[in-house]
């Protein structure tokens, strides 16, 4: 009877999405060809080319900023908050209505499992617009003033393409700003579908402009003199470059950058749930998560037991077709990222850590990496210090709460942390001492529109989400409301 119990491929239908052979830029409410070259976006699960996408030139970016400025001056900044709210509510509703289409497209372009795009990304995207729609006419209660900044230039990463778009666009628009947004070059498709949603919602032209491209396009946005605000999510390296580029200007900046989060498991933790949390912390979204729990700090007295349970659990993870509803871990987003993950993993082995990967068959085509755990890792190892941004967990041990705090904080990053213990007072004391912008206790990787997110130290500055997320898009009260 053994092996009869098999999961069926349960692929979500691709028929709900209509991918065009080529895409232009979305400027002033219309799709245009752009003046630059173009690039290809591929399905990382199959390496199939999905579409040709325009690469916005400096002139294109300038045009987009001009459109955003016009829309800001003539329409959006003059509109009442209640009316802005109605547009955002419309967008939220259309996202809910076209949710399956967005989820499938996201999984095709990004490689993430459909159950994540469908059950996590897209619902939170809709909720984010819904939440910030509500703020548009309530800014006077939020405590950050009511005057928008103007044109926001926004550059987002490939790990949560649509979700990062929502985190950027929803608060910007709610506060009365207009935006020029650049999606990542490997994942432009859902942003372009979002542009279509803006058209369906009759959003005034120029309020949202989507320009696709790579690093040069991003630089053009960030350094454009008529951009009042720069919001960036991505690597710490690029974040630092942006901070230098805007030096001496009046641009307001928020940066949400890398992380190397410690997930700390005490001996009195609810172990079965902690194992789920460890798995979710590092293998959710293939580990392409800036706040991933990539360093497991486990108390020595339970280390063996936790590792045994973790490996047993990892063996049940299903790696494969992102569109299969049974898939737990999808494809690595790009060949480049896969090479980086492989390189760091090899360094981990070379430096003496013990490598174990879940036994699983990887598809022949596409970019894949088996869920992997390194034990015997010390603070000095590169895999304990550098962000791998993949399904690779480094395991360290500790003996006392103080040692756990020291190790957890011993990093230039400070985005997130996890604590697992049944003791409430210990959770709070650990939370107080951890230098991280988000601390999850007995859970991990939870996101909600009402909850602010962002890092300490080199993980960036500013917060996205919640009431605090408004601050980055409003003029400080002390400097008055005049432009």
């Amino acid at each position, binding site marked *: *009877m053994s092996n009869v*119990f098999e*999961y*069926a491929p349960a692929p979500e239908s691709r028929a709900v999405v209509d991918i065009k052979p080529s895409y232009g830029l979305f400027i002033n409410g219309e799709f245009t060809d752009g003046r630059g070259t173009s690039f290809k976006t591929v399905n990382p699960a199959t390496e199939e080319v999905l579409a040709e996408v325009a690469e916005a030139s400096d002139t294109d970016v300038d045009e987009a900023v001009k459109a955003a400025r016009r829309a800001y001056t003539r329409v959006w900044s003059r509109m009442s908050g209640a009316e802005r709210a109605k547009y955002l509510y419309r967008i939220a509703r259309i996202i809910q209505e076209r949710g399956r289409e967005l989820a499938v497209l996201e999984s095709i372009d990004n490689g993430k499992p459909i159950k994540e795009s469908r059950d996590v990304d897209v619902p939170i995207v809709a909720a984010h617009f819904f939440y910030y729609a509500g703020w548009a006419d309530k800014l006077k209660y939020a405590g950050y003033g009511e005057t928008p900044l103007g044109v926001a230039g926004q550059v987002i990463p490939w790990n949560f393409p649509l979700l990062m778009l929502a985190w950027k666009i929803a608060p910007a628009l709610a506060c009365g700003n207009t935006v020029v947004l650049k999606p990542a070059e490997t994942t432009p498709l859902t942003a372009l579908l979002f542009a279509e949603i803006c058209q369906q919602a009759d959003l005034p032209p120029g309020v949202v402009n989507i320009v696709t491209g790579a690093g040069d396009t991003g630089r053009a946005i960030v350094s454009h003199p008529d951009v009042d605000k720069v919001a960036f999510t991505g690597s710490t390296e690029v974040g630092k470059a942006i901070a230098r580029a805007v030096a001496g200007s009046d641009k307001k900046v928020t940066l949400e950058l890398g992380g190397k989060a410690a997930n700390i498991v005490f001996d009195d933790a609810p172990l*079965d749930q902690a194992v789920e949390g460890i798995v979710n912390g590092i293998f959710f979204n293939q580990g392409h998560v800036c706040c991933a729990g990539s360093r497991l700090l486990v108390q020595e007295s339970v280390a063996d037991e936790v590792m045994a349970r973790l490996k047993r659990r990892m063996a049940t993870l299903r790696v494969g077709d992102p569109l299969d509803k*049974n898939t737990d871990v999808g494809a690595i987003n790009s060949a480049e990222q896969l090479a980086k993950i492989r390189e760091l993993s090899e360094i981990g082995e070379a430096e003496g850590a013990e490598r174990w990967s879940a036994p699983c068959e990887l598809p022949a085509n596409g970019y894949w990496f088996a869920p992997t755990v390194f034990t015997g890792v010390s603070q000095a190892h590169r895999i304990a210090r550098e962000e791998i941004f993949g399904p690779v967990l480094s395991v360290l041990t500790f003996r006392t709460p103080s040692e756990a705090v020291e190790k957890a904080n011993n990093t230039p990053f400070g985005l997130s942390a996890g604590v697992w213990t*049944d003791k409430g007072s210990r959770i709070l004391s650990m939370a107080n001492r951890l230098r991280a912008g988000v601390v999850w206790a*007995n*859970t991990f990787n939870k996101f909600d529109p009402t909850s602010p997110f962002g890092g300490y130290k080199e993980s960036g500055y500013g917060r996205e989400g919640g009431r605090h997320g408004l601050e980055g898009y409003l003029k400080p009260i002390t400097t008055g409301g005049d432009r």
Partner: protein
Amino acid sequence: MRSDSSLRRFLHGLPGVDQVGCEARAAGLGTRSIKTTSKAWAIDLAIRMVDLTTLEGQDTHGKVRALASKAMRPDPADPTCPATAAVCVYPDMVATAKQTLGDSGVHVAAVATAFPSGRAAMDIKLADTRDAVEAGADEIDMVIDRGAFLSGRYLDVHDEIAQVREACARPDGTSAHLKVIFETGELQTYDNVRRASWLAMMAGGHFIKTSTGKVQPAATLPVTLIMLEAVRDFRDQTGQMVGVKPAGGIKTTKDAIKYLVMVNEICGEDWLDPDWFRFGASTLLNDLLMQRTKMTTGRYSGPDYFTLD
């Protein structure tokens, strides 16, 4: 482990259960979909795991005979349809059930120990058990003393289970299998379910079972998840396998398959066997039969085409 306090120290030293995380995990397992061939196999397996149950004040010998016939031949129109694991009845109906079932291989399970409340003197509970075993019961489904458990008299609960297990012994040296019902709807917390599971396993129960079916909520996926984790961990520590039986509230094939997926992912294939996993149910069987027919005929069936016993 000879005192309440030593048992308490052990049981309360088990890792706690985080409710939110546990429920999220159970819900996540519920989204798996299985192959059509596996589904056909899973439906037959689920039929073979059913303890077809009637536990009503209005039960009669006629009703029990009808139920036993159905257990042996769930789908009279299809000889390839397997029999259920057992019929589950009150002790006074054991002889009738046994007579009908004969050597069909379908077991007779009897609920004993003043089911469903368990509120009776110990000698009465033991007599109840012995009567059922003497009448031919293959399996005894006992209830624990929830009052004792909730007030921390763990030793009483432990010893009661151990004594009932002794009462399951037959003169020939064999023994009826003992299932221990927790009534998880009354224990309320997952921590309690985990502790009760370990207590029952240490006292010698062959199976741990969620509910009597008389209290809501009865079986749920998260409660069953906790119990499956307990039997898995118990085997890791002692080498002994203990079975799990969710009972009450499992009505559809879809539900049953969710449970089987959970068994497979938490405990592995060793438990995918009627000796180690059972469903306590009555209406579930007809839904399994309907889905079984759908798989062979390719069209949806209706309740009129299945017997109502």
